[in-house]
């Protein structure tokens, strides 16, 4: 009985403690709040924390310079676990708070899209650094994207492969999720148009570990180039298994592979892989250099492209707020649409021709176990 009472009271105290801790942000007098919805736990926790670090960096910088029109910015972070139903609830929470003027996030397309109708109804800007689903920005008027979509990156890669590398017989291996399907579709479409022959299109389910069937099929087809919209875990597994099977194709892949993990897990097998990226830490452009320097000074590590995209999302948003002020949510949208000449860490961004930006990608490759700028 005593045990039961102790436990019950502990539970009650815990719950009350949680409830009284209240909204995560401290009330700031006359401040403006920006919401960040990102997966801080779960499968994508690493990327969500990249978001949080970069956005905090931007906010601190703006506040140090006196805020926006004299008002301090404040960040409200919410963990979505990459789960669609959580991101819907977060959207409701943000929309219900009259101080929150705009939202950054989420990481994955499915969480971002599930929450979109809530933001649209509240006329609140939803700017996602990474959501890549083609139809997301068509769901409403308040959705803004920072990353180059596969509708852009796919054809870009196809021109690189067919026009610049002169490869005529191409095979693809892609991850079967919303992103991979799009990546493959747009690449194949453009490559065919440019006159290349697509020898095979092989999909694999996320989490698959054994790729021998796909590899032996491709080995038999002898393609000039293999295009692989994948993530580092799958990619390195495929390349290691291909090496064991003595299959060494020329590989072109996607910005998704840009991570130290690809080098660590791939070793010799991934040598020569070419990818385009949104952001490269030794990119000579000044905006990228500034970001790399600031991020390193604050967190002591090189940023990755997810951090760079989140940095740009926050940068765009604050630039828009500076232009139109902070008195209405709907105005933020006009602010973003009206921005011209914004130089981000991931290249110049403008929403003049729609809410999906056309980006300049940086070509890089793996050489001697390092990511380096691509040279033909």
């Amino acid at each position, binding site marked *: 009985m005593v045990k039961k009472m102790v436990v019950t009271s502990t539970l009650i105290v815990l719950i009350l403690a*949680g409830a009284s*801790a209240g909204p*995560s942000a401290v009330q700031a007098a006359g401040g403006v709040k920006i919401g960040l919805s990102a997966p801080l736990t779960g499968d994508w926790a690493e990327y969500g924390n990249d978001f949080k670090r970069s956005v905090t960096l931007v906010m601190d910088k703006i506040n140090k310079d006196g805020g926006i029109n004299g008002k301090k910015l404040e960040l409200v972070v919410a*963990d979505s676990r990459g789960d669609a139903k959580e991101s819907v609830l977060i959207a409701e929470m943000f929309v219900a708070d009259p101080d929150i003027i705009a939202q950054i996030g989420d990481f994955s397309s499915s969480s971002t899209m599930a929450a979109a109708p809530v933001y649209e109804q509240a006329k609140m800007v939803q700017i996602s650094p990474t959501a890549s689903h083609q139809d997301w920005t068509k769901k409403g008027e308040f959705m803004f994207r920072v990353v180059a979509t596969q509708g852009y990156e796919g054809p870009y890669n196809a021109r690189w492969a067919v026009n610049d590398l002169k490869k005529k017989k191409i095979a693809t291996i892609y991850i079967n999720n919303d992103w991979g399907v799009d990546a493959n579709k747009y690449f194949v479409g453009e490559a065919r148009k440019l006159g290349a022959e697509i020898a095979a299109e092989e999909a694999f389910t996320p989490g698959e570990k054994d790729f021998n069937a796909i590899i032996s099929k491709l080995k038999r087809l002898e393609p000039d180039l293999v295009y692989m919209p994948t993530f580092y875990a799958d990619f390195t597994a495929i390349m290691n298994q291909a090496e064991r099977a003595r299959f060494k194709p020329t590989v072109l892949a996607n910005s998704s592979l840009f991570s130290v993990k690809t080098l660590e897990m791939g070793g010799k097998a991934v040598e020569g892989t070419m990818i385009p990226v949104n952001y490269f830490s030794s990119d000579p452009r000044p905006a990228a250099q500034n970001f790399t320097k600031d991020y390193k000074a604050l967190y002591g590590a090189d940023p990755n492209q997810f951090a760079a995209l989140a940095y740009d999302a926050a940068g765009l948003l604050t630039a828009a707020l500076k232009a139109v002020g902070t008195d209405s949510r709907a105005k933020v949208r006009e602010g973003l649409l009206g921005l011209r000449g914004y130089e981000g860490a991931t290249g110049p961004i403008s929403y003049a021709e729609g809410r999906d930006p056309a980006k300049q990608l940086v070509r890089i490759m793996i050489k001697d176990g390092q990511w380096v700028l691509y040279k033909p």
Partner: protein
Amino acid sequence: MRGLKSIMANSPVLLIIAAFAAVPLFVANMYYLQVLVFIGIYAILALSLNLLNGYVGMLSIGHAAFYAIGAYASAKLTIDLQLPWVLALAGAGAIAGGFGYLIAKPTLRLSGIYMTLVTLGFNMILFLVLQNWMGFTNGPLGIMDIPPPSIFGFALGSRLQYYYLILTLVLLTVFSMHRLMDCRFGRALTAIRENELAAEATGVDTTRYKTQAFVLSASYAGIAGSFYAHFVKYISPDSFTINESFILLAMLAFGGQGNLIGPMVGAAALILIPEIFRPLLEYRMFVYGGILIVMMLVRRQGLFGSRSYRLRLTRFDPSPVRVYQRGDKFLPEG
């Protein structure tokens, strides 16, 4: 006044319903209302799983499959066939029930862990089908722009209307399950759970009852899926992974099973805990896991487990109600 008192004594459920119906009058923040809507969806799901795990004692660990079937069926019926939502809801229930039958018929010969594995496998296979059948489910891209529910031409839009709709659905689920569990069907299920051999010996057609329970359970889950699809308006396979099934199991473990109160309490608790601890950011799942572990250590049967609570939904009988518990002797008194 006396009337109120006797209602209090005999049918506290009516007061609880009234309280829930009045909630929107006092809650201005739509976020809280939205949390309640999700609790409603999960209450239906947990209740439907409870029908199998709690009443019949068949452990199903792939229940999210039927939830998914309901959601996709409803979305496809309203978008492709232009059916009104009410029919799509019924259709979602029927289709999920149909799949339940297809799974139940061949697998109920298996007992214990084997049948559990079949449900797990079904959930995984269904996820892969949703993920890969581009032409029908649009694969990982999901189905977008699912129309809001419209009831006889009246389209629901506001969060308030969604709240009352899910409240109605939860009440319908509770009332119908209560009736079912109080008649021969429910008694037979309980008999099967307590001792399948004895039940069969006394003339209970166990396979038939188990099949029926499975079909019913699947169709309740399908109805919850239909509501989810039209409420969030975007569905993708991500929302119906094996994880979702485990959350449902955790709800039953937390709230207790074998009665109608436990699953609802479990659903409410496991939706509320992550929301309440949101300010802890990345540490909130520690608390979530911690509470579950503590719960299992001190009250293994769940908060409201191990008893059958009478909801007193049907009568206004002032005489004391006898509650039979496991192991009671059913002898006439005095």
